[in-house]
């Protein structure tokens, strides 16, 4: 008997619903599914650095690391909601913390056949930079197949810009000819 396919679905705030809805029907039958969420360490770090800017004020609050506790709780709740939305209560839930792109690669480094991720970045401007830097890194370095899904409506093929008409592409150093009458 073939060993079942192992799939990791990477859920991120903002795109998680769309990601699960798009990925659900594409999952291989009998696949073992794990849901992954990474709490970024840099957001909490930036917030804590701002309180260092206050020098000594409010020492008691600073020591309690309120941000990380909140972040972990929210991450766990997000994973539970994701498993419910996918209709896979048996899914393994992986909550990690650190540099997001590195933690995702680490989570799929061994015995994972497929990583499902939502396209992030600004979808209103399609082009080389429409994939955010985190997803770009994951796509480049993932040691497994990656299924990249639209978290929202996929664009139509009319989003492809028309090629410039040959007669409008002037040779370098020349002005464009006047439009035909």
């Amino acid at each position, binding site marked *: 008997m073939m060993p079942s396919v192992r799939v990791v679905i990477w859920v991120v705030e*903002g795109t998680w619903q769309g990601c699960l809805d798009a990925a659900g029907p594409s999952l291989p039958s009998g696949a073992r599914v794990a849901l992954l969420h990474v709490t970024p360490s840099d957001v*909490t*770090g930036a*917030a804590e650095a701002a309180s260092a800017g*206050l*020098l000594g*004020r409010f*020492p008691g609050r600073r020591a309690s690391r309120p941000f990380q506790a*909140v972040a972990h709780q929210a991450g766990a709740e997000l994973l539970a*909601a994701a498993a419910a939305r996918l209709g896979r209560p048996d899914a393994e839930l992986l909550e990690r913390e650190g540099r997001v792109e590195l933690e995702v690669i680490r989570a799929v480094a061994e015995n994972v056949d497929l990583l499902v991720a939502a396209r992030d970045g600004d979808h209103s401007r399609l082009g080389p930079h429409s994939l955010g830097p985190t997803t770009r890194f994951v796509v480049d370095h993932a040691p497994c197949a990656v299924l990249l899904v639209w978290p929202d409506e996929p664009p139509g093929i009319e989003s492809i810009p028309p090629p410039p008409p040959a007669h409008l592409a002037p040779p370098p150093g020349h002005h464009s000819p006047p439009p035909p009458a």
Partner: protein
Amino acid sequence: MMVDRHPPGHRMGPARKLGGTVPGPIAETLAALLLVATLVSAVVRPWGLPEALIAVPAAGLLLVLGVLPLSQAGTEATSLGPTIGFLAAILVLANLCDRYGLFEAAGTWMASGSRGRPVTLLALVFAVASTVTAVLSLDATVVLLTPVVFATVARLRLRSKPHVYACTHLANSASLLLPVSNLTNLLAFSASGLSFARFGAVMALPWLAAIAVEWLVLRRFFSGELIGRAESIPPRRQPVPVFACVVVGLTLVGFFVTSLVHIAPAFAALGGAVTLGVPALASRRAALRDIGLALEVPFLAFVLALGIVVKAVSVHGLGSLVTHLVPAGTSLGSLLLIAAVAAVLANLINNLPAVLLLLPAASIAGPGAVLAVLIGVNTGPNLTYVGSLATLLWRRVLRQRGEELPVSEFMRLGALTVPPVLVAATVALWISLRAVG
């Protein structure tokens, strides 16, 4: 009357004959080293020790060795005293607002008002963070509001980075409006000779300009993170703390009224803190110990000691050097230069000593120059928050706790916001000075 129109020392110039028993160059080096030690220990806080632990002995050492004569330390302390009292009242007021649930209510309001849209939520965070910073000081935004914003965004299952950065950036750049918005403003307020109302009137336009530039840059910088939509906002009934809102509003009115009848506005802050504090104590919302902790006595001692250490650095040469850097006049060019010098100094050392060093020279040049210094020292820290030296050390502390300061992103955002905010706010100040006078 607490307004001290003539900060001590600014008429004396560099004090070559002041020296006690310590030769000039040694005194200069010692004062500078102690300043660095004071700042570093306040940021790193080895073994969790209070920030005053190095600062107060450092100030004491400088006095014992005669590096700073007692008489000068006395005048510095007298001029800092009322400012420190004002700061204490504001710290307690903000802390009590938290105990009445003001910030939690703001979080609930932002969540429901956003309708789950991240950009709308960011706009609401801008409005709340700018208001809280202006009225209750940047401390309230960093310590009390930012965690609430973080939790609110997490509850909506949206990405928190743009909203957290909005809070940390606005804590600095939206702290231009009122003397109470930032400790640097309080220090400058007593030196500027401006009334509370006039300060607010002149700084309103620079404040709005700084917020507008932050919005434009952050909205674009984080366009990839401001995506998705919260499907349903988890209902959370959070009663609006009407009493706390009314007291804060009346305190704000009190700041203006007291300044019109020439009473120190610190009394309005004290009035607000007492009005909130007494019922809080009676209803056991806060214990006396909580209010004692909210006073931040070690920090107040730290500010006083820092003032004395900076004074010692200032009279031994650095002060006259800084005086040369502050141009006279209120032409747009001079104001821009002053703001830039202040921003650089705030990033090199830290904004508190930067403002203490620059104030004597700036107050000779007039209120316009003092306000330009504030634009520099308040908006500049978005590059390094605590000054470059301390930031380096702070990164190590964060890393030990499993967190990291995203230096490249953080500096990139700082480099994109600080120069345009500085220029926009200074141009606005220049217009404001001509319009308001």
